[in-house]
């Protein structure tokens, strides 16, 4: 089974992000492999352990390959970095185009990616890649069972109030949600392999992607400006003893906040 996992290195949820100007952010240098992508890597490695085959991790990133190293440390076999100066300024659709061009070059049985990247929270790349490759997709999966012949999958997807069970032929693009598995912690052997990994590098030329389709020129969605989040005023402390504090709270919620 040939499995490809799309991975992104993103600012840690705890990293400080400040607005420098309307068009510029300052992000603390604290990054990690996107939480949902680790779930995708884990699932890929589990599939390999069951069905054999290889796992390839791929990232579109001009600077950082740490997500690739994480993938190798967790058990992936191959790592691919797609980088190109022309990618600066790309939006999710541009990135999806590049990933689709790469994926088209080889046959895959399963393409896994995270439900969303924890920086943009766009959740666009997975379905967009599937559409560009004319493959079926299922997003936010919580369960995956692949048939013995490797040609179809029974998938559980998160929906409001529960999980939807569906059958999907392979190859397909599946986006992973928390609950699917618990990502393994890489062992020393894996870490050592990751340090020495040969990363295959590709640029737009190698993929046959027109630079006009990505970067600033290819953008469909434009960021006009950054804004601070809405501020919440300081909490009102309710200091009375129990149960008077509960009575006061209810009164405040009704009369002041008009929330009851």
């Amino acid at each position, binding site marked *: 089974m040939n499995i490809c996992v799309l991975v992104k290195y993103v600012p840690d949820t705890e*990293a400080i992000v400040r607005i420098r100007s309307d068009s510029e952010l300052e992000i603390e240098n604290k990054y990690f492999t996107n939480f949902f992508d680790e779930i995708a890597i884990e699932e890929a490695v589990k599939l390999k352990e069951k069905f054999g085959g290889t796992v390839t991790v791929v990232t579109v990133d001009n600077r950082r390959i740490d997500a690739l190293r994480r993938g190798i440390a967790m058990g992936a076999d191959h790592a691919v970095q797609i980088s190109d100066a022309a990618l600066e300024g790309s939006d999710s659709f541009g990135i999806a185009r590049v990933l689709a061009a790469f994926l088209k070059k080889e046959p895959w049985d399963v393409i896994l990616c995270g439900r969303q990247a*924890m920086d943009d929270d766009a959740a666009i790349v997975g379905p967009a890649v599937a559409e560009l490759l004319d493959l079926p997709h299922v997003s936010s999966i919580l369960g995956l069972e692949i048939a013995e012949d490797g040609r179809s999958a029974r998938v559980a997807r998160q929906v409001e109030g529960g999980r939807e*069970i569906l059958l999907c032929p392979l190859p397909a693009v599946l986006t992973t949600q*928390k609950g699917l598995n618990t990502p393994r912690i890489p062992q020393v052997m894996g870490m050592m392999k990751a340090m020495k990994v040969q990363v295959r590098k590709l640029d737009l030329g190698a993929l046959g992607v027109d630079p006009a389709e990505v970067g600033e020129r290819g953008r469909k969605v434009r960021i006009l400006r950054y804004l601070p989040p809405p501020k*919440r005023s300081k909490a009102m402390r309710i200091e009375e003893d129990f149960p008077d504090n509960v009575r006061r709270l209810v009164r405040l919620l009704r009369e002041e906040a008009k929330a009851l």
Partner: protein
Amino acid sequence: MGGEVWVFVESVEGAIRKVSLELLCAADGFSKEIGGPVGAVLLGRPTDSALENLRSYADRVYLAEDERLAAYTSDGYTLALASLVRKHGPAVLLAGSTSTGRDLFPRVAVRLKTGLIPDCTGLAIGDEGRLLATRPIYGGKVFCQVSIPEASPQMATVRPNTFTLEKMNKRAEVIRDTTGLEGGEIRQKVEGVEKTTQEKVDVAEAEVVVGVGRGIRDPGNFKAVQDLADALGATIGVTRAVVDNGWWDVNDQIGKSGKNISARLYFAFGLSGAIHHVLGIQTCKTVVAVNTDTNALIFNYADYALVGDMMEVIPALKEEITKMKDEV
């Protein structure tokens, strides 16, 4: 620039999802600014009463009726929605930021060669009649204002409870139209839904949410929480710690790796206020925190802070609320 403002309408077990109606209310305002009617797109087989209800919220209801659209599949719905858009060319296409909206819209956007602004918490009409959207990034540490300057239709998904639901009394004409399924293939086959929560209203869509953290200590204690939730007409939401302990289903997890909520009223009981959780409640209107620890982080994000034992406060709160309701 003119053109129709469309809302992709979702129905659940015959009823129209609230977020779809909220968006139709907002679309009414947008349509006045850009000068075109409001269209509601419904795929599948709605009940008569759902269709009637929907008619009062739109100028036109586009209906693609087909058994194969009875359950949502990304293939079927992409075919149907893209074909309707191609035929009628709306200027704006909106959906709720729900599991369906977020699954469907990226695929449709690529097929139509347009852009998509996902998971918006604010939406208005800007210059030249273009959408002006606000959305959180970096988990809500920063917001950004975005637009789709050139492509059409301009697509966006919007969080539930972003707009107020009002009663409307339009009388939409119903346009029964092509399903777009001809020549296409639906590759996914839906077998059914396993309900993991009893709640009728999903936590992401609920107006009042009772949030519970590790402070609950024992899953048996959820009985009291459920009583309070029932008295409030609320849905229960939980932290990741509660899910990881196996005390509640992941479907109701609030936060970075769970759901974002925009409740009118959020109760945070026995949860510390870790950034991963707080990022998911940022757009809630009123936040009440109850914690035994005077210095709990969650108090920094709350409007009302009560230092106390949740197991004592919850039943008392339920009593007070029931009493208050009886008085009214």
